[in-house]
């Protein structure tokens, strides 16, 4: 049973990081119906900013972590203002193509820095001795990662449900014209959605970077890695991102723990989530918690 519980704990850890990474996609899609393909680059950028502020500037890592989220908040908001604001009302495919271009630009910018081609790791700021309970262990890095993820997701959920701006964002998501007719500034909402996605991406980047080390390739690829989570959860659901993240994390760990290496199987941990995703989408095409829109024609 210890083995089973270890897999559960590992699955939840991985799943919650997936959820936080997926959150950026959801926040933008929820308000603007746009998929930001450059999300992985923002995740990587956030992690690099934390490192730069900690090691090059000398700030305490906790301060750098918060500062990084503030910086990416404004950076993402600027990106929306400069590149995407003009595309409001244009076909969605045009906007997605712009985000692909944005990915190239961000790649180029990061390659101009040492982070583009060199590997780094955060200075150790947490105890290296893991926490063990009944033979099940979790590292401090993982535990802190899960706690931060829970806090951020809780804060975003509250924001969308209770705050005036959050409710405005949901209104824009439901019907842009109706939202405008009651005085909500749609461009402002879009900017804010990007900014919040940037903030969550920085948080995710710092957590992932602390686990894998700071390698641009690994961090940048994470935007695509979590894509099945976003689809499974339903593109516009925060709860969906959390549930799907944890489902994916658990599936991967159980596949690695019980299938891989047995009966000639290998790599099922990478493939099985996609198979399950396909099966679920057959029955729930909008994902587990996605909005099912019925249009009258």
């Amino acid at each position, binding site marked *: 049973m210890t*083995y089973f519980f*270890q*897999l559960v*704990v*590992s699955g939840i*850890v*991985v799943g919650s*990081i997936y959820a936080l990474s997926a959150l950026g996609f959801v926040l933008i899609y929820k308000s603007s119906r746009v998929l930001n393909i450059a999300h992985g680059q923002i995740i990587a950028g956030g992690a690099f900013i934390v490192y730069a502020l900690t090691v090059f500037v000398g700030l305490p890592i906790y301060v750098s972590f918060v500062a990084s989220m503030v910086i990416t908040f404004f950076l993402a908001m600027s990106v929306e203002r400069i590149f995407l604001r003009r595309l409001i009302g244009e076909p969605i495919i045009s906007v997605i193509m712009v985000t692909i271009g944005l990915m190239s630009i961000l*790649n*180029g910018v990061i*390659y101009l820095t*040492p982070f*583009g*081609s*060199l*590997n*780094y*790791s955060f200075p*150790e700021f947490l105890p*290296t001795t*893991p926490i063990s309970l009944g033979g099940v*262990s*979790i*590292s401090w890095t*993982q535990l802190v990662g899960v706690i931060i993820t829970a806090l951020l997701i809780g804060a975003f959920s509250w924001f969308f449900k209770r705050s005036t701006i959050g409710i405005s964002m949901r209104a824009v998501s439901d019907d842009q014209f109706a939202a405008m007719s009651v005085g909500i500034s749609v461009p402002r909402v879009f900017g804010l959605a990007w900014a919040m996605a940037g903030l969550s991406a920085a948080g995710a980047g710092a957590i*992932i970077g602390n*686990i*894998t*080390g*700071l*390698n641009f*390739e*690994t961090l940048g*690829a*994470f935007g695509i*890695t979590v894509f099945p989570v976003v689809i499974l959860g339903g593109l516009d659901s925060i709860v969906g991102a959390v549930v799907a993240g944890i489902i994916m994390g658990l599936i*991967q*760990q*159980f596949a*690695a*723990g019980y299938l*891989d*290496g047995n009966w000639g199987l*290998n*790599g099922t*941990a*990478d493939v099985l989530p996609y198979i399950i995703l396909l099966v679920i989408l057959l029955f729930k095409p909008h994902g587990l918690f996605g909005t099912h829109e019925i249009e009258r024609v």
Partner: protein
Amino acid sequence: MKRNRFGYLAVVMAVAAGLACSAPAVAGETYQLGLSLAITGPTSDAGNPYSKGVEDYMRFANDTGILGDAKIDCPIRDDMYETAVSKRNFEDFLDQGMIFFLSYATGANQALAPDFTEVQIPVIPASMDSSLMKASPYIFLPIASYSHQYVGVAEYVAANHKGDGTAKVAAFIHPSAFGRAPLADFEAAVAAGLKLDLVEVVEHGKDLDNSALLQRLASKGVQYVLCQTVQSPVATLLNDAQRLGMTAKTFGEPGKITFMGAHYTGGNDLIALAGTAAEGFHWTTSYRVTSEKGPWTDWQLDMAKKYGRDDKTANSHNYASGMMAAQVAVEAIRRTREADQKVTKETLYETLNQMNGDKVFTSLAAVGPVTYSTTDRMGVDNVQLYVVKDGVFRSVGQPFKPKYLK
């Protein structure tokens, strides 16, 4: 830290000897070379310092007149790890009159191998995949192939395992030809009598947590994990093993796992990524590392300083690797000139094939001489085992040649 002055002197003398012997066959010529590699994109963490190593050695060769008053022009182009771009770069270089090509990735070399053969141009790749030697007779590996490094690690395990019975090992490999090719040679070595029990082959993904994998391997009695991949997945594996208390503190510690790997799994980048979890990691390569002071490493650090490189680049084994590739190319040109031959693709190819017997080339960047012939296109045959101790790589024993590979 006290430097080995005599050794350093030996490097300077060797370079001076090169200068003395470099009576120019044709004065004032410029030899056109070319380097195409991933300075950005996948594997650029290796490609970037490699390119700087080539660039610095070429500058050094021109600055110090190793080729008399002849010069080398070696443009460096980023191919972003894309074969199509690499091919375009190669063709552009040919149009510029290139006589020696420095290439990079396994895939691009395999794709371009027929072209190398067709235009009969000597090539030194950064990849050490043994299949490249079969793909074209014009490809010369700088050091021992991945297969040699991997089987070298395996032979060390077989020879030094202290427990009862045959050592149980697992292979942790990159899901590509780069990861699989050495495994095939490893399996051949086991079939040929190398006493190891290969329990499982793991082709890794982008895992954030390897608890399941590690516990499964431990439950099967695996004591050694042999890695053939790049540093990032190894770092995550080591971090997880440390968290689960599975990492062997000494080689072969019973009940724990000793992690080992070939060239691209190790180096300072692994320590940068894994931190203290890298302690005890065993690694093979044919290059010397700057944590082991010696004449070459002193010289390497001085070169890096001279050309304004940062500490990370200066101490990278990929920087040394780039320097050595450039060194072999320059040496081939120097010897061809010395023989009063016109320096062309064809004569450089002949010169490389004659680098054997009393004509071996000793580059102090590696742990053995560079030897080539028409039947041997793997430069340095020796590998050196290193282990991470107190945050740096330290050598274990002497350089050796794996016995189970020809």
